[in-house]
């Protein structure tokens, strides 16, 4: 409902909605009010030009063309809706047949649809008009049947998309029948796009009718729709052009109304609920009460990345949302930093902010954000893109979506070098092959000519790293680079990152939700919770972590030495929703050590002499040993 309301918020949507309502209202009331005026024959006033009495003139029997156009609204709209209904019903039957009939029967139906779709609609309409005979009924059936294949194809595609989802498989496994699955699971999930498309095709049907009637194949005398009026008006166009133009306008306005209304609804549904979100004010003053965390340990000489008090803010329905709330850290040359945390902790956004990839609706602020001494907060410029393009490499979680599936791998790698380093096509390709070799891809010359789908997941991820190495990166940011990969392949990718770091003294930021992976590869680990760093410690000290959250994360992962007789440790409750961060320590609600102070005062990130930073009022205190598993589960459910 909210989505439909958002249709009205755009000028186009509002206009389309009003027009559509206007046309429908007219279709209902016009014949009631003006039939007599429209049918009044005035033989003394045949083929008259527009006058005060007859706004659009009269036809060859002296009937008022303006009134006739108004009255014709009902028949025109009725015919269009009837034809659309036929197209939708037949289309639905065709489109869902494949799902109901199973593989073989479905293939036959699909082949039929594919052939029918290939014929031009108007040709099909003419064909059906011949079969069903000239007249309104024939035209309705003709246009309806002509629209059915396209609708069937749409339905079939949408059904196939839903049928591949696991919930359909789950219903099958539960023994639910196919027809029931179709009615309960498939159709409700494709209802919206189908309804939207039906509205749009109603507009199309209206135009098609006008065309058919204009050709004399549609509505016959004495009844009349807009197409018929157009047909009659065109014969006298040199005497009274308005006789053709007025019904013509009516067709255009009604057709546009349906089309635009359908498209506005489609747009509103597609965009989701974002419609009414206010723009970010230039300064979100009330959010800026975060105290900058002073961190003076950074010596500037070998620092690759220096981040101080980084904040990322997005507009939200109930005011700005800040998923990253003031984090500070530095990465030195050759250093590997791990960032761990649950989904929604802000770890990925931090990476995106560093590489300037936060999308336009978000705002990135920081007291300092420097890569190799260059200020990343400065306005986007060519020089800066060049600097980022060559000195920062980004590796994403899903290597399939980070490559263009239609381009050869070699060319994709070469592109960045040609762009940023001005290499010739041949040199760039040579470098690409060399880089593929450096990430241990066998037969790199051959592989460079292949497409992304010919690479396995692990190879794609290595190629992605290779792409980052086309420049001379000082920093690699890897966001969950191994989450989509198998353990064995994960190990290869991690080894590769480690060896690149060693060989070229490249710094690495490795983001992961798995603290064991991070602990294995990195020198230092930053633990993030609710957009803050809650602990910053050496990876070797993970076993002696101070923050209760870090300790809970460590305990939650089973390893090859986990006690099989004990239940696994779990973290009760849910991660903090960035739009609703509680007062005090954000972790307090889930923390077994939480005291009254934790719920009111947010602990600052404080460093000890060894540089171990932790933000907790109860850092290092012993945890209450056995909390009943059952209690934790209940806490999660509450």
């Amino acid at each position: 409902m909210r989505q439909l309301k958002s249709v009205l918020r755009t000028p186009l949507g509002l206009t389309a909605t009003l027009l559509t309502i206007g046309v429908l209202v007219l279709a209902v009331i016009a014949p009631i009010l003006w039939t007599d005026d429209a049918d009044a024959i005035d033989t003394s006033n045949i083929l008259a030009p527009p006058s005060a009495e007859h706004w659009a003139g009269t036809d060859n029997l002296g009937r008022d063309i303006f009134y006739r156009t108004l009255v014709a609204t009902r028949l025109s709209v009725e015919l269009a809706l009837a034809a659309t209904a036929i197209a939708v019903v037949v289309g639905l039957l065709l489109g869902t047949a494949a799902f109901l009939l199973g593989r073989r029967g479905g293939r036959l139906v699909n082949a039929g649809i594919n052939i029918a779709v290939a014929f031009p609609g108007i040709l099909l309409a003419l064909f059906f008009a011949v079969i069903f005979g000239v007249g309104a009924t024939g035209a309705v059936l003709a246009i309806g049947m002509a629209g059915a294949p396209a609708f069937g194809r749409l339905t079939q595609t949408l059904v196939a998309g839903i049928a591949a989802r696991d919930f359909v498989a789950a219903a099958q496994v539960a023994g639910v029948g196919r027809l029931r699955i179709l009615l309960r699971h498939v159709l409700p999930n494709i209802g919206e796009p189908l309804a939207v498309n039906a509205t749009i095709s109603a507009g199309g049907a209206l135009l098609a009718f006008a065309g058919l009637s204009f050709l004399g194949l549609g509505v016959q005398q004495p009844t009349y729709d807009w197409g018929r009026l157009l047909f009659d008006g065109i014969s006298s166009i040199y005497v009274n052009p308005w006789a053709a133009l007025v019904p013509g306008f009516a067709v255009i306005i009604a057709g546009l109304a349906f089309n635009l209304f359908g498209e506005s609804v489609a747009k509103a549904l597609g965009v989701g609920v974002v419609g009414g979100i206010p723009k970010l004010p230039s300064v979100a003053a009330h959010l800026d009460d975060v105290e900058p965390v002073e961190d003076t340990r950074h010596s500037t000489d070998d620092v690759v990345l220096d981040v101080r008090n980084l904040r990322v803010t997005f507009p939200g329905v109930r005011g700005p949302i800040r998923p990253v709330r003031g984090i500070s850290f530095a990465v030195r040359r050759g250093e590997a930093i791990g960032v761990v945390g649950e989904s929604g902790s802000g770890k990925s956004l931090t990476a995106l902010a560093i590489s300037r990839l936060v999308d336009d609706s978000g705002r990135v602020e920081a007291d300092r954000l420097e890569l190799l001494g260059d200020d990343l907060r400065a306005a986007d410029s060519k020089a800066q893109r060049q600097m980022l393009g060559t000195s920062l490499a980004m590796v994403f979680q899903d290597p399939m979506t980070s490559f263009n599936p239609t381009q050869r791998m070699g060319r994709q790698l070469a592109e960045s070098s040609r762009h940023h380093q001005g290499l010739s096509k041949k040199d760039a390709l040579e470098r690409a092959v060399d880089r593929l070799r450096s990430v241990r891809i066998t037969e790199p010359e051959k592989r460079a000519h292949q497409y992304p789908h010919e690479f396995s997941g692990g190879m794609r991820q290595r190629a992605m790293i290779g792409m980052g190495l086309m420049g001379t990166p000082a920093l690699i940011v890897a966001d969950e680079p191994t989450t989509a990969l198998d353990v064995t392949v994960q190990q290869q990718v991690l080894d590769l990152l480690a060896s690149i770091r060693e060989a070229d003294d490249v710094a690495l930021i490795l983001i992961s939700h798995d603290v064991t992976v991070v602990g294995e590869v990195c020198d230092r680990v930053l633990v993030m919770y609710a957009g803050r760093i809650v602990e910053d410690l050496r990876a070797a000290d993970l076993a002696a972590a101070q923050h209760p959250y870090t300790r809970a994360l460590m305990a939650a992962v089973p390893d090859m030495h986990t006690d099989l007789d004990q239940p696994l440790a779990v973290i009760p409750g849910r991660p903090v929703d960035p739009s609703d961060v509680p007062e005090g320590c954000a972790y307090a609600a889930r923390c077994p050590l939480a005291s009254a102070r934790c719920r009111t005062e947010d602990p600052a990130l404080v460093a000890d002499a060894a540089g171990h930073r932790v933000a907790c009022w109860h850092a290092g205190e012993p945890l209450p040993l056995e909390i009943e598993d059952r209690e934790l589960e209940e806490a999660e459910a509450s």
Partner: protein
Amino acid sequence: MSELRFDNVTVRYGSTTAVDDVSLTVPSGQVLGLVGESGSGKSTLARAAVGLAPVDSGTILLDGKPVPTRGRRRPLQMVFQDPYSSLDPRMSIGESVAEAIPPGLSRAERRTEVERLLELVHLDPDRLAMRPAALSGGQRQRVALARALAGKPEVIVADEITSALDVSIQGAVLNLVRELQRELGLTILFISHNLAVVRYVASHVAVMHHGRIVEQGPTGHVLSDPDHDYTRTLLAAVPGQSQSKGSL
């Protein structure tokens, strides 16, 4: 007794053989962990067991009888990997669970049964009117488990049910699997690529590689004394072996 047996099962998709002549037994009331890399055929084997993938040759037997893959009575139930895709977003979680309850109960009886199932997986029965979108990943996976249990299954096939979850939630789901297995005496085919997870829940392990089972046996034995090279590779790849954990 509810022993699940695969006898020389082969599944082909076109010219690719996804599962190649696999013979495997999941002992009654036990958990068998099936490990292997993606593309090794372990998910296909699972789907074949519940009738979602066509079996080319071989038989899948439950207590010596072919597993029924038609009709309402389904003694094999499956829990899927991605809890974001395995629940219908338009249905309340109560409806999703109720759908899997075999027919023949009155409306009130169904409701009581749904509440019992939700309690079994430690979800508050008051939430049965909620849509999946209002639940976390871990809670959704509990609903999926409740739905699988609704069919009163003898065997549950769990296909990578924790790999789409945060590690902090994974533990709770694994605890639940162990608890349910013990309390209900279920036979479980537990598929995972994570050896540490399999070690924690399974009494037996089978290792799958390129569509074949290369090694199987009791968990402790296979993991401490692997016979096959591929098993050794898998073991070496488990992260976090170099460090020991702090005590809580």
